[in-house]
């Protein structure tokens, strides 16, 4: 594989001898790289470099965080997320990563075994439900990082762990090669094609994502559908109806574990950052109400959209448990 995904490759000196680092560099065809002292020297750089670099580094801080209140816990008492990779290959206009990270650079923390060690300390007290792909799309990066396989192996071997890997990727080839566990849930964000085309640059269309759902299910993994975030646009009823109808047809033989729904919401601080960066973005510039530190649609809009979606799911995905973010 070439490293055409990335303009430059940087390696933190302390990560240079890691097995994971060596494997990633090999997968990228042993590219030229620059050695740096700290990933933030590149990741947080203020000079507006428009390209995308890959940074291989160690995680200097916390590796397992408690899940945010606006994120779904699916009824799990001990809900966490783990940013083993920072930033995403896709370019979704509404993504909180746009408010959180300064640029397009992707940082892979090569000391993932330390993440698993931190997780095991938590598991001494109780079981854990971990979302491993919140700050990135691990499936889309699998050929580079190989972390979907790592999390699958870890989850299959660790009975106290349930893992969710969320993705928009349409790859169908990887699932049959991965170790299967009923505690490793692949969660597919499915959007209407109008939303994908308009606001999710670089992502596959709904048809592609639905094929990936079928592939994951055929390989034996539990699958979750995420109709989240729902975006308020002029013809939202039509496009979401069509999306759900089509998903139910395509997935008729598939045993969907559960479905997650929710209208768009984002931390107030990230929203401020996004509005500065994207003055012409319809999504960033919507006049959200600010409620307990989060921007969200007013009740009138959120209720209408979420209630509508629940009715659709009651028709098209009867008997599948539905979780709403609020």
């Amino acid at each position, binding site marked *: 594989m070439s490293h055409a995904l990335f303009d430059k490759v940087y390696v933190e000196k302390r990560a240079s001898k890691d097995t994971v680092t060596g494997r990633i560099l090999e997968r990228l065809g042993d590219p030229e790289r620059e050695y740096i002292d700290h990933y933030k020297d590149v990741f947080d750089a203020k000079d507006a470099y428009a390209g995308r670099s890959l940074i291989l580094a160690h995680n200097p801080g916390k590796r397992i965080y408690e899940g945010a209140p606006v994120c779904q816990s699916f009824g799990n008492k001990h809900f966490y997320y783990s940013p083993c990779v920072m930033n995403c290959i896709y370019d979704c206009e509404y993504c909180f990563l746009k408010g959180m990270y300064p640029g397009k650079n992707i940082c892979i923390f090569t000391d993932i075994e330390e993440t698993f060690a931190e997780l095991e300390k938590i598991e001494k007290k109780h079981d854990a439900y971990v979302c491993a792909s919140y700050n990135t799309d691990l499936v889309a990066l699998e050929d580079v990082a190989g972390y979907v396989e790592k999390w699958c192996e870890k989850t299959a071997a660790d009975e106290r762990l349930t893992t969710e890997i969320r993705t928009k990727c349409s790859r169908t080839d990887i699932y049959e090669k991965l170790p299967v566990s009923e505690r490793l849930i692949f969660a597919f964000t499915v959007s209407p094609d109008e939303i994908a085309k308009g606001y999710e640059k670089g992502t596959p269309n709904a048809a592609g994502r639905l094929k990936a759902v079928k592939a994951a299910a055929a390989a034996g993994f539990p699958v979750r559908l995420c109709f989240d975030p729902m975006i*308020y*646009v*002029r*013809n*939202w009823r039509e496009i979401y109806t069509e999306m759900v109808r089509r998903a139910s047809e395509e997935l008729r033989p598939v045993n969907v574990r559960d479905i997650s729904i929710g209208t768009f919401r984002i931390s107030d601080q990230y929203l401020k950052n996004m509005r*500065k960066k994207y*003055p*012409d*973005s*319809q999504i960033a*510039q*919507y*006049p959200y109400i600010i409620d307990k530190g989060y921007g969200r649609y*007013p009740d*009138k*809009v959120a209720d209408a959209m979420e209630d509508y979606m629940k009715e659709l799911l009651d028709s098209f995905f009867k008997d599948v448990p539905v979780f709403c973010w609020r």
Partner: protein
Amino acid sequence: MIPGAFYSKCIPGALENEMILTEAMKNNLRQICIYAHTAGIDLEIMRQDLEKKGTLPARDKESSKKALTEIYDYVACSF
């Protein structure tokens, strides 16, 4: 694009002049207008509709608050 300059231009003068606005209300209205611009909503048509209804012009703070709520509903909640 300089964010400050962009934001300061976004309330159409005709709209601002028809209400009594505090700074907080101006900020809210500004955000509504920026969104309307990105979503292709014609603020002049909206202003004329609100004039026909009698919502505008709003001559005091109380009726301006009500007008602002109606403007918000018109722009942000009517799809």
